[in-house]
């Protein structure tokens, strides 16, 4: 099996690479590339994302044919794809970080700044928070409810259809931290930095 981590200049992805290699050992082949043919022939894709919504969308668009290839993979062929952090946020129709930017439109919704309740809550939301699993999800197999995951973000994904939400966290408001729609999976938290329990989620995705 081939799992491809899409390397589209979205910032620092070394932690994502390390964690997937740790989980895969030598049983699964982990590719790190933006090569369209390699992406097309993969079994699963990981879409990381760091920095702003706009910078990540721009970086995707800067690679000729990448968005079309991802659409073909995830929407037409319905093969499993995991978005992490801004990787998940880009599933939305639109994001409001820096400036209004069009997302991939895979899961209808928007990405807005977290309400800090007039400065009562610090942003970025950095650190370990407990996830509240609201829907059975394949990537949460053997993951206990209220497990701690590592977060670092100032924006949140607000999907239109609440049925896609698989987990939330309590911060200033109830924030979506995991979404699932068919073959599309996304986490706002960083499984690659969430210790053993995060590696378990990565393992669940690899073994889908």
């Amino acid at each position, binding site marked *: 099996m081939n799992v491809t981590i899409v390397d589209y200049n979205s*910032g620092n992805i070394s932690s994502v690479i390390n964690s997937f290699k740790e989980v895969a050992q030598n049983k699964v082949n982990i590719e790190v590339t933006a090569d369209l043919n390699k992406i097309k022939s993969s079994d699963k894709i990981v879409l990381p994302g*760091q920095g702003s919504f706009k910078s990540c969308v721009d970086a995707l668009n800067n690679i000729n044919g990448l968005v079309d290839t991802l659409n073909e993979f995830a929407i037409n062929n319905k093969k499993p794809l995991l978005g992490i952090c801004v990787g998940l946020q880009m599933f939305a129709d639109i994001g409001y970080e820096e400036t209004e930017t069009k997302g991939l439109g895979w899961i209808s919704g928007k990405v807005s700044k977290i309400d800090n309740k007039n400065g009562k809550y*610090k942003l970025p*939301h950095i650190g370990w928070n*407990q996830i509240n699993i609201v829907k059975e999800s394949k990537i949460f197999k053997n993951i206990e409810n209220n497990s701690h995951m590592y977060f670092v973000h100032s924006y949140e994904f607000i999907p239109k259809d609440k049925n896609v939400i698989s987990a939330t966290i309590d911060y200033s408001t109830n924030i979506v931290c995991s979404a699932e729609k068919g073959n599309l999976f996304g986490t706002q938290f960083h499984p690659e930095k969430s210790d053993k329990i995060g590696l378990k989620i990565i393992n669940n995705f690899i073994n889908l």
Partner: protein
Amino acid sequence: MLKNRIIPCLDVKNGRVVKGINFVDLKDAGDPVEQAKIYSDGGADEICFLDITASNENRSTIYEVIKKTSEKCFVPLTVGGGVRSIEDINKLLNCGADKVSINTAAVQNPKIVMESSLKFGSQCIVVAIDAKKEANSWKIFTHGGRKKTGIDVIKFAKQVEEYGAGELLVTSMDRDGTQKGYDIDLMQKISETVNIPVIASGGVGNLDHLVEGITKGKVNAVLAASIFHYGKYSIKQAKEYLDSKGIPVRI
């Protein structure tokens, strides 16, 4: 609920830990990778490396340390010490650091905070502030606390927040190494001034100091070095103690 973080810090010089954990099961007490692994297995919420390598020739040793640690530890890694340029930050991130802390360079040229947070994202840019009390205010010191700048800490903290720093790591020069506890007034003042998370550093001698930092200093994370060295306290003990005092921590 967001938990308060406990961050052990390892001082690294020429690729080796200076003050290390003196555990019996350690093969090599000077190996930063092995020590970081002990901390992460013990439940550290994040691991901080402070590179105190004096000469430029040996600067590259920290890259190797980060690279190896990030292959074994799957919690956030923060690296600071001697970070001068965007290129330095880029190299550290590529080696596997999740956050880079900038100290002297941010004081000399605050624009580096703006440039780096735009380029890499605020989430990975930490500004480290070394503060010393003078009369009724705190002033910034640079070059590992050796050089006085006269810059007001609170004004500087606000400025780097505006420039896009994702977090502040605040060290009290008066308390560092004393084991008398954090400078609580300083921590509280900064925490109430900025809307980004604050990490307290400098002066921890016992577990009550960690409690005070969070309850009175209002910080979001507590960093300590020497209490975790030589196995005086383990990360687990520290967390259980905070938990017993009603402080939300990840256990």
